[in-house]
């Protein structure tokens, strides 16, 4: 169990975060660049001192600013940190990089087994400069595992590698973390990377934890408009629930529905979400799908459809599937959720 509840001073804001990760659990910290994600990892690793707070790992208090004050130095923490730069020692062979840690079992059996799992068997005597990016990352991972660290911190380790390699390496980390039953924290600014790795997703922005939940739940039910923006909602359409006689009840103005480009179906499906009719203002291929910009009233949304839609008179009818709604305060306003099988009793505001 890894627990951190800290406050760290940054130039523009204060990072205030409390996370706890169980043994064998994989937590992803997702947020924009400069949100304080790396700072949080560095506090856990002991590279940055928090202004206030406590870090504990498996019952050992690593940092505490309250009595008894503790600041265990990095070399006694047994916390592994993997960064985007693999950080291999260029003057040592792969074998000596792998067994660098004083705690690394020098026994040939474990090294040989790990080298085989990581696909490094034939590279043990090579110098890091000869390795490809993926190989270097595998050596860096193997080095942490041979060091038998009690927690694994991953700071966007695979940014810059191509997608298939990222998938392989992520799978490898998941497997090894599960086998060793150690807590793992991944920092990512790509949502897909975070989701591929984690069984729990935490959204962080400007030093504050905004939401903590299952990787799909956070995306489907963002707790606030800001979270929605961070996880990819590209448009917000003003809506109102129709009151008796089609009149909007007073006092619930300013509600918007978030439209995620990938949570949109072609055509009108009133039982599945909010039907939107908009003017197509632009379109482009997006991977294998088609992306279109839609102007609904004054709101601009972006949608992604499997097929390029047939647009008539410049208008397109689509359905935003089960969209999350937010009040004027930016917080989730679930009042328009109709429950399964029933039509959404909302209208798009003029």
């Amino acid at each position, binding site marked *: 169990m890894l627990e951190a509840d800290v406050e760290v001073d940054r130039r523009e804001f204060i990072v205030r975060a409390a996370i706890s990760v169980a043994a064998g659990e994989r937590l992803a910290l997702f947020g924009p660049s400069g949100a304080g994600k790396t700072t949080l990892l560095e506090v856990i*690793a002991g*590279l940055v001192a928090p202004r206030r707070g406590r870090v504990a790992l498996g019952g050992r208090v690593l940092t505490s600013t309250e009595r008894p004050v503790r600041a265990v*130095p*990095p*070399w*006694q*923490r*047994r*916390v*592994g*940190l993997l*960064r*985007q*730069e*693999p*950080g291999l*020692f*260029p*003057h040592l062979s792969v074998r000596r990089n792998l067994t*660098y*840690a*004083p*705690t*690394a079992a020098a026994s040939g059996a474990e090294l040989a087994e790990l080298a085989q799992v990581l696909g490094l068997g034939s590279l043990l005597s090579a*110098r*890091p*400069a*000869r*390795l*490809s*990016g*993926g190989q*270097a990352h595998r050596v860096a991972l193997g*080095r*942490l595992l041979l*060091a038998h*660290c009690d927690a694994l911190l991953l700071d966007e380790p695979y940014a*810059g*590698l*191509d997608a298939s*390699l990222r998938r392989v390496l992520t799978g490898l980390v998941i497997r090894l973390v599960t086998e060793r039953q150690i807590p793992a924290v991944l920092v990512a600014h790509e949502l897909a990377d975070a989701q591929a790795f984690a069984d729990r997703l935490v959204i962080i922005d400007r030093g504050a934890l905004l939401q903590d939940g299952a990787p799909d739940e956070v995306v489907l039910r963002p707790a606030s408009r800001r979270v929605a923006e961070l996880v990819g909602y590209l448009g917000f359409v003003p809506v109102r629930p129709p009151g008796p006689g089609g009149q909007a009840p007073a006092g619930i103005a300013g509600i918007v529905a978030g439209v995620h480009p990938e949570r949109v179906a072609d055509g009108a499906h009133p039982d599945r979400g909010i039907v939107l009719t908009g003017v197509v203002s632009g379109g482009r291929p997006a991977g294998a799908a088609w992306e279109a910009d839609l102007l609904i009233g004054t709101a601009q949304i972006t949608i992604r459809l499997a097929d390029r839609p047939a647009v008539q008179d410049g208008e397109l009818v689509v359905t935003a599937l089960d969209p999350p709604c937010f009040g004027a305060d930016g917080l989730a306003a679930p009042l328009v959720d109709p429950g399964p099988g029933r039509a959404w009793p909302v209208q798009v505001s003029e």
Partner: protein
Amino acid sequence: MSWAASPPSATGGVRGDDPSGRRPAGRRRPVAGPRGLRSAAGKASLAGAAVIWLALLGPVITLLTHLSWQSIVSSLSAPGAFDPLIVSLEAGGVTLAVLLLLATPLSWKLARGTLPFPRFWEAGVLASLLLPPLVIGLLLVFMVGPFTPIGEAIGHLHLSGTNTFFALVIAEIYESAPYYVLGAQAAFGSVPESLEQQAALLGDRPLRVFRRVTLPLAAPGLAMAAAVAWARAMGAFGAVVIIAYHPFGLPLQIWTSLEETGLASALPFALVLLVVALPLPLAAYIWSARARGRRRG
């Protein structure tokens, strides 16, 4: 596989590898125009480089062409001819040892920015680089001379800060230390801090990190810095002539030979000085270039 995350040092070459220096606007002109200009500029800069290189090497070439075997033999076979060489080697060795021991930690701290008021510390190092050696010598007399507090303190240890081997070492340290500190600072600065952090997280205490990561990675640069400092110490003259006229080192031997018997008899000692002072820097240069090449793969 080309997506390899290359070290910063390697990526520096990317721009240089790109042959398309041409701008779109340049395409309208005949291709030979800009290319011809470029090659003319290239030739001019090559010629300039050759001139300055030859000019810099000129004294060495001159030395070799003006020496005759006879003069070498007669100068070096005089009784006690090798004493200055031995004095210089001993003083240089002690100087280098002192620098390695005392100036290395300073360089490391300067490189890591862990000292309070770093500019202040750097200015102190630069002072002895910027002061003319002759002035340093003068000031040293007033600092460690026999009738000064420091001089008296040294006297209690039965040492003297003027005209002794000890004084020679002091003068050589002042003349060579800034070269070593600045070079070593650059060498330590080239070691990524992230590697030291990684070593610490893997369980190494700071001293072990220094021994296993920082020192090996900085070694080529440190060797260069030490070699330059050695050459400066061997050739130290300005400060030496004032506070350590005795015992004679090689530079003073050259100076007195010149004064007493003329140019011709000074030249063999100049050759000896070069032969002693240069091999270490050259060896360090070759070794560090090879070590860096190995790491870049």
